[in-house]
């Protein structure tokens, strides 16, 4: 491979730094933030003894009901106020409920012109045959964007809680994971071999036909994620890691969320009513129709499928 720029020069470019940041190979805080080394906590024998003695003394004093009048009175008042507060809360909620409109009545505030507009003009304005998809990915695309980010943040939280960084921990955890697991189960493998391709195809169909029929990004992504988990259970981590690693997940998720944000942000900046789009809506009913909805569905599907699989991997062995 010929190189036009030297390695040193290449390492100064923005794209190299961006890639490093994306792969997480370089800690951005390292060498940039002053870090103090943490001292290990020491305590001599006498202090521990003293502390425990104090604690015991305090507990005895506080919970000695026969001699401690304050606690006794406090407990009685506490019970009375508990009952009073609960009664008040129940009454307040019951009164609130009594002001609610009758269930299913025609002149409820929920039956307003918004729903009628969605039904009447939804097909014309969004181009989606499935009104629900037209609603969540066109009129209310901002909500769906937030939901995708919530999923992503949930994965990050699970990652923080369950991820194992030390190699010894990882190996021990994996041995524990494998200890009561049927290895190379013939029934499971045969069933998975037959079932996994239809599951993937069905998931892709649900995602791609989200604007034509029931389905969409979330349900299709969940189906694909479940298929991935089945494949993983049958054939083990060695096979799935050939095509799906943490790096793949990071890139997929980042790409999908960025794509969604960029595709939708233009309409947020042009105002609330973003109906005038430069993308043609196409013939309703065709697969390439309804503007951005197909693209957004695919993005949501990718995020959801990756998230499902990552959750499972995190629970199984704390990272993959």
């Amino acid at each position: 491979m010929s190189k036009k720029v030297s390695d040193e020069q290449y390492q100064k470019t923005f794209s190299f730094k961006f890639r490093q940041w994306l792969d997480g190979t370089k800690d951005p805080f390292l060498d940039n933030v002053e870090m103090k080394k943490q001292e290990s906590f020491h305590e001599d024998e006498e202090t521990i003894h003293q502390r425990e003695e104090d604690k015991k003394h305090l507990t005895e004093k506080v919970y000695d009901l026969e001699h401690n009048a304050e606690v006794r009175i406090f407990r009685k008042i506490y019970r009375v106020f508990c009952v009073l507060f609960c009664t008040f809360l129940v009454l307040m909620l019951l009164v609130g409920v009594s002001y609610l409109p009758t269930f299913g009545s025609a002149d409820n505030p929920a039956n307003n012109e918004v729903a009628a507009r969605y039904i009447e003009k939804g097909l014309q304005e969004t181009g989606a045959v499935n009104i629900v998809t037209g609603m969540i990915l066109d009129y209310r695309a901002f909500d769906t964007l937030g939901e995708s980010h919530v999923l992503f943040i949930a994965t990050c939280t699970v990652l923080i809680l369950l991820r194992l960084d030390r190699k010894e921990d990882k190996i021990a955890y994996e041995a524990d994971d494998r200890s009561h697991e049927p290895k190379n189960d013939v029934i499971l493998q045969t069933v998975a071999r037959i079932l996994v391709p239809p599951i993937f195809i069905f998931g892709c169909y649900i995602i791609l036909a989200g604007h034509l029929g029931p389905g969409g990004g979330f349900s299709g992504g969940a189906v694909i994620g479940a298929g991935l988990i089945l494949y993983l259970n049958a054939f083990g981590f060695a096979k799935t890691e050939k095509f799906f690693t943490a790096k793949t997940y990071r890139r997929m998720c980042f790409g999908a969320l960025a794509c969604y944000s960029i595709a939708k942000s233009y309409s947020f900046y042009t105002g609330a009513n973003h109906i005038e789009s430069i993308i043609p809506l196409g013939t309703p009913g065709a697969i390439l129709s309804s503007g951005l909805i197909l693209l957004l569905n695919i993005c949501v599907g990718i995020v959801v499928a990756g998230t499902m699989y990552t959750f499972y991997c995190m629970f199984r062995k704390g990272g993959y």
Partner: protein
Amino acid sequence: MTIFTCILLGFLVVCAIAASLSKNLLNTILIFMSYSLIMSVIWIMLESPDLAITEAAVGAGVTTLLFLVTLKKIHAIIKKDGGEEEKHE
């Protein structure tokens, strides 16, 4: 409301109570899974197939798997020498 829907709804209530009263964690998870399955059938009867797909994939599939993995990780399911499953509480 048809008889079939009534039966399904009754089963739902039974499942919900059984799941909370069951002492065995593994049984609770299985009952919870059947609850999700019944729920997905009910979603279809309420004419929202997209929700039914999601409920079947997430509620019955992924959530149950995550619960089972967690049970295994905290050693709530252990095997006896005879191969019979024994539960901890």
